[in-house]
């Protein structure tokens, strides 16, 4: 089949240079997949004509689920029959993205048989993305995936597949068990995950420490980021060792400390933990000398999103310190209250962060029964933000102006 590859001079440009190329990947798949061959042809055509040839929004799925499959059709089915349907299947990844090669092989076997063979490991939500199949293959794919222990992920206006950093399984900085929480939330919110009923998508991302390896602070409606509330553990001998090996503590550690809470007299490193921001910088630079404290837990934040309909938002603090203890009932109850008000009052396609902006953080917190506290403000030390009831009128006016 390889000699039947369509000529793709424009796409070939994308294979040049030292970088990995999706074009090379598709060509590789095209050796055994007609859909991948047509995909190359269709894409080259789009590059020539400068228009996309995918139609917007198909509705396909499997029985019992309202999400997990994204319907896609091309608008030139006669010329490119093998991509006339090119649906995407989202598959719930295991927490921390751990697989046995055996499991990956089985997924690929299913996909080579019933789809284009092309995958995207992983999508930005975290799922395994299987690219390109036909409507009549969906039920068999679903049946075969579940037979090997996989389930579809979320899509549309539902809880998206929760994802996390690998946490305690491999990382010494993990302040809580991200994988356990992710697994538990996934199981607990099966209905919300598979049966879209929200105003828009809702993502959970769990990071074990403030390094936030899954970037939850920038792209999850609920970001759960590990932290500690006691003191950074310091091994002074190891600090000295770093300086002996050439580390300039003043320049590389203290100068970058956002809390300005460190002092170094050449022998001893002092940290004023009361103003430490738990940013991880010093720990990342001197991992052998410094460790997070022992009283660990997580900060729960709400409301970040990538720019889609409105601009990007970062999360803001909802619970400064939370002890994640299975079965996490306190967190789940809180989610219930958040979804209640958002589903009731949220507009179609309004993310929770935008909803909070529209409603005002004060009103939102009151509705979900959370006390406003200084930690919820992005820069509490620089910003004299006050939450007293008698000032609320003024606050509302200011917020109104901010939005313009």
């Amino acid at each position: 089949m390889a000699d039947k590859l369509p000529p793709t001079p424009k796409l070939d440009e994308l294979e040049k240079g030292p970088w990995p190329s999706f074009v090379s990947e598709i060509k590789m798949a095209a050796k055994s997949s007609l859909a991948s061959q047509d995909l190359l042809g269709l894409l080259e055509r789009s590059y020539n004509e400068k228009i996309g040839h995918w139609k917007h929004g198909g509705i396909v799925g499997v029985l019992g689920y309202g999400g997990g499959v994204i319907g896609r059709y091309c608008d030139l089915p006669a010329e490119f029959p093998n991509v006339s349907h090119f649906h995407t299947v989202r598959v719930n990844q295991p927490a921390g993205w751990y697989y046995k090669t055996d499991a990956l092989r089985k997924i690929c076997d299913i996909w080579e048989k019933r789809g284009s063979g092309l995958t995207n490991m992983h999508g930005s939500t975290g799922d395994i993305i299987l690219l390109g199949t036909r409507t009549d293959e969906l039920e068999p794919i679903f049946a075969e995936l579940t037979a090997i222990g996989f389930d579809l992920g979320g899509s549309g206006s539902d809880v998206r597949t929760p994802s996390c950093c690998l946490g305690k399984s491999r990382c010494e900085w993990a302040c809580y068990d991200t994988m356990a929480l992710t697994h538990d939330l996934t199981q607990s919110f099966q209905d919300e995950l598979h049966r879209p009923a929200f105003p828009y998508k809702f993502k959970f991302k769990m990071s074990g420490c403030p390094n936030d390896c899954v970037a939850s602070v920038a792209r999850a409606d609920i970001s759960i980021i590990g932290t500690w509330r006691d003191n950074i553990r310091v091994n002074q001998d190891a600090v000295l060792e770093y300086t002996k090996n050439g580390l300039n503590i003043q320049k590389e550690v203290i100068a970058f400390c956002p809390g300005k809470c460190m002092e170094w007299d050449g022998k001893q490193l002092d940290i004023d933990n009361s103003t430490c921001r738990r940013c991880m910088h010093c720990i990342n630079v001197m991992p052998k000398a410094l460790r997070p404290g022992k009283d660990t837990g997580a900060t729960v934040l709400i409301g970040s999103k990538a720019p889609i309909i409105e601009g990007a938002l970062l999360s803001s603090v909802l619970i400064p310190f939370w002890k994640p203890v299975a079965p996490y009932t306190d967190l789940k109850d809180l989610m219930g209250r958040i979804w209640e008000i958002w589903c009731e009052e949220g507009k179609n396609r309004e993310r929770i962060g935008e909803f909070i902006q529209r409603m005002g953080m004060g009103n939102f917190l009151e509705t979900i029964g959370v006390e406003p506290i200084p930690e919820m403000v992005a820069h509490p030390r620089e910003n004299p933000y006050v939450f007293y009831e008698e000032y609320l009128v003024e606050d509302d006016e200011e917020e109104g102006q901010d939005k313009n």
Partner: protein
Amino acid sequence: MATFEHGSVKIEVDEDGFMAEPENWNQDVALALASTEGVGAMTESHWKVANYLRDYYKQFGIAPMIRKLCKETGFSLKEIYDLYPSGPAKGACKVAGLPKPTGCV
């Protein structure tokens, strides 16, 4: 566009099987479309959902949000999926003869 035939019913549908001309909808069409969405038989409850969607669509030109559908028909989301296993958007709206919903239900 494709033609969908079932018994005496013959209608134009889009690639997802939604009616191209919703004004041609009638009960026979609903029964025919139901057969493609895993709906065994159209019971009174099925009609209640379908008729609500139909009325809402006639009035507002779009499908209602899911929460509204549940509230107004008195069915929980689970019950809607029991009635229409492919869900409110793909299943119920299709049977009710709505054109393909874009992001609402």
